[in-house]
């Protein structure tokens, strides 16, 4: 068995030649892939934070929110990250149960449609899940799940087991129709063209014209209006209400830079962070930046009812809801 020692040797050697950055402290933020992409909020936020922190902000990326949590659980207390950014309320229960997080100690004035007093996780943006359509192609837009079921429209959704919006829809139906979930899913099944692994595949197929509607966010049309100058996309408003996605961040208890981590969480609800969110992450900011929002956001549908299961409810109902979903769609 010479090979393992060879590998270990090589690993040790690389560790030695890795430059040690002793002068500038490093703050490592674990987040999802699209956050740090060149078209996401990452670059602007990194520049804004580094301007004042006297530190080096490094993003570690891992797929999406759930993949990020999996990575965190995998590395446990040995995680090199100081801050985790990008969990949502469907994941915070498991994150809290891991015991890896420390209180953030912040009490900013949040503009989130639900009361927020979680000591471990602080929101930085949010939006509602919704079915998005092209106004030039789709008429007779449904205004509830029942109308959608009764229509002849086609929809694309995401797999709840591999996608955040997919899981969001599962919880949406659980929250809106605790007694009728199986019936709703059975009714939706014929409307579903296909189920994609992630959001981007579903949205891509929808833009190709593969379906009339796609599961996305009420804020999605803002992208087309602002970046493409195309006002023809809209989200269908459902009378039973829309499920919220609240994206949060937390500090890891094992952080080697606890002060910097707290600074970053505090920075998160300030203008330097929040102003980058609406037009890169295409979500609502958790604290309205001074500059306000692009007027295109005013044209978006604003649901009257916000639905959100608590982290505990979401965690306990998840597996049962998934069985119902699989049962209904496997017919």
């Amino acid at each position, binding site marked *: 068995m010479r*090979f393992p020692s060879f590998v270990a040797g090589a690993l040790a050697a*690389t560790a030695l030649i890795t430059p040690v950055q002793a002068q500038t402290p490093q703050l490592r933020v674990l987040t999802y*892939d699209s956050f740090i992409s060149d078209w996401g909020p*990452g670059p602007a936020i990194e520049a804004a934070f580094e301007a004042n922190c006297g530190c080096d902000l490094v993003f570690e*990326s891992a797929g999406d929110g759930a*993949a990020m949590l999996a990575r965190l659980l995998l590395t446990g207390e040995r995680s090199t990250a100081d801050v985790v950014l990008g969990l949502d309320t469907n994941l915070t229960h498991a994150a809290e149960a891991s015991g890896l997080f420390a209180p953030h100690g912040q009490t900013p004035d949040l503009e989130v449609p639900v009361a927020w007093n979680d000591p471990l996780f602080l929101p930085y943006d949010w939006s509602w899940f919704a079915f998005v359509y092209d106004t030039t192609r789709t008429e007779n837009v449904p205004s509830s799940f029942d109308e959608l079921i009764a229509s002849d429209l086609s929809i694309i959704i995401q797999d709840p087991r591999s996608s955040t919006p997919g899981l969001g829809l599962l919880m949406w139906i659980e929250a809106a129709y605790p007694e009728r979930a199986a019936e709703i899913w059975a009714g939706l099944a014929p409307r579903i063209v296909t189920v994609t*692994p992630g959001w*981007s595949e579903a*949205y891509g197929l929808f833009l190709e014209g593969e379906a009339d509607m796609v599961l996305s966010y009420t804020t999605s049309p803002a992208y087309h209006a602002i970046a493409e100058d195309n006002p023809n996309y809209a989200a269908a408003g459902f009378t039973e209400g829309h499920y919220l996605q609240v994206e949060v961040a937390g500090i890891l208890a094992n952080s080697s830079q606890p002060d910097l981590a707290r600074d970053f969480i505090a920075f998160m609800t300030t203008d330097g962070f929040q102003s980058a969110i609406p037009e890169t992450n*295409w979500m609502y900011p958790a604290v309205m930046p001074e500059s306000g929002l692009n007027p295109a956001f005013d044209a978006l549908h604003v649901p009257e009812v916000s639905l959100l299961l608590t982290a505990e409810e979401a965690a306990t109902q998840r597996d049962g809801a998934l069985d119902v979903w699989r049962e209904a769609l496997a017919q």
Partner: protein
Amino acid sequence: MIWRIEPKALLWAAVLVAAALVLVNLGALGAVISRSEHGATLTPADWAAARFTVTQALWSAALSVLLAIPVARALARRRFFGRGLLVVLMGAPFILPSLVAITGLLAVFGRNGLFNEALALLGIAPIRIYGLHGVVLAHVFFNLPLSVRLILQGWARVPAEHQRLSASLGFGAWARFRHIEAPMLTRVVPGALAVVFLICLTSFAVALILGGGPRATTLELAIYQAFRFDFDLGRAAILALLQAAIGAAALLILARLTLPDSGISGLDRTAPPPPGGLARLLDASSIAMAALFLLVPLTLVVLRGAPYILGLPAPVWLALWQSLKVATLSVGLLALMSAALTLAGLHRRWPEGLGMAALIASPMVIGTGLFILIHPISDPAHWALPVTAFVNAAMALPFALRALLPAARRAEADFARLSLSLGLSWRAHLRLVLWPRLRRPAGFALALGAALSLGDLGVIVLFAQTGGETLPMQMQRLMGAYRTGDAAGAALLLLIVALAGFVLVERLIGGRNADA
């Protein structure tokens, strides 16, 4: 009896490659198991996933290979203007990232695709691509080119003398098939079937996107979900074992089906003119249909990306550079690994089996396992490049060995005695006997490795951090940022680079006229 003494170093190199493959596979799986907190059992849903996985893989393999036979025959015996270019272009779907290929396919077979528009003009109801048939269609789209290539190599190994014989004896189509082609096919087809089956076994995105729902859950998807949704490493490991068991069973069946190559060979003479008449018509329509099926979706990918490609943002071009680095390293590793296993495999069977076994591992488990292994020792981001290159090389290794080993064994059967009687040293034997016979398959194998590595969106995702993005990653991110136009441009760039990389490596290694 073997008089030539095989250099010890060679055997050690092969053993080292084998050890690396085994350790990475078992080590990764072991790492995953070691971190699981409790045992796991398979649920009915898992068995359903296993059934679906096998069903779609069987259909995909059977159809890909069946359709490839007439196409390969037509390409083998016809010479026409643009044949070389066509062969290269027809190979493109195999090296495309699946997401790009799916967009191309949907532009043809989707709801608003060309095919349904044509049906609408004829007053026929549109077809729905989503379902098992859609999955199989996409897999055939990916694997028909590979099957054609593999079978084409079989045809290339039919000695021209045999074709002359069949021409001189006035063989009709049936006699030619029975006496010349069928014996060759019985040697080539099982291997091609197994390779396609194994590729489709670990299918992930295609199955889910085109499968239409949870019915179309494959094992690889179940593994992904076990990691990501349930964070149940034990379940992920047991699913990976089930997947590996199915793959290993396929390999064992292949080993029993594979016949030794027949000992007759020719003198590199040119083949006689092919039959005319009906055969000519059949060949022409086979080539035309395959070209239509493979090239129309590809053309649509090109047309959609073309307006955006020049205006692609700088990060995409940086990612291209990163992708080229990964691919170069990967091709280098692939060359070393396949050379060691091919030479050691001249008179042994285990190197072949081991190389093929790289196909049955779950990429998801390998990636996660390596992450678990590396993380406590070093920052995984430092390892993104070598780990990705190694995993890509291991993924391409089975294809490389399928191309190299038969050619090497054939050369050995034909010329080992001559080489021995003349007293060629091992190095001279390599340089004068084996290499000239292996150049072309080696060019093909390494070119495939380069293209596969360029288009791969696998373990890198787990390892890379800012600045280390590859082209497929950036394409994915553009899609995730609503930028479908730029994503289409990046897809076209990827297509161009993968094809150019393929052609470049194949010509560089395989020499000119390397395309058959």
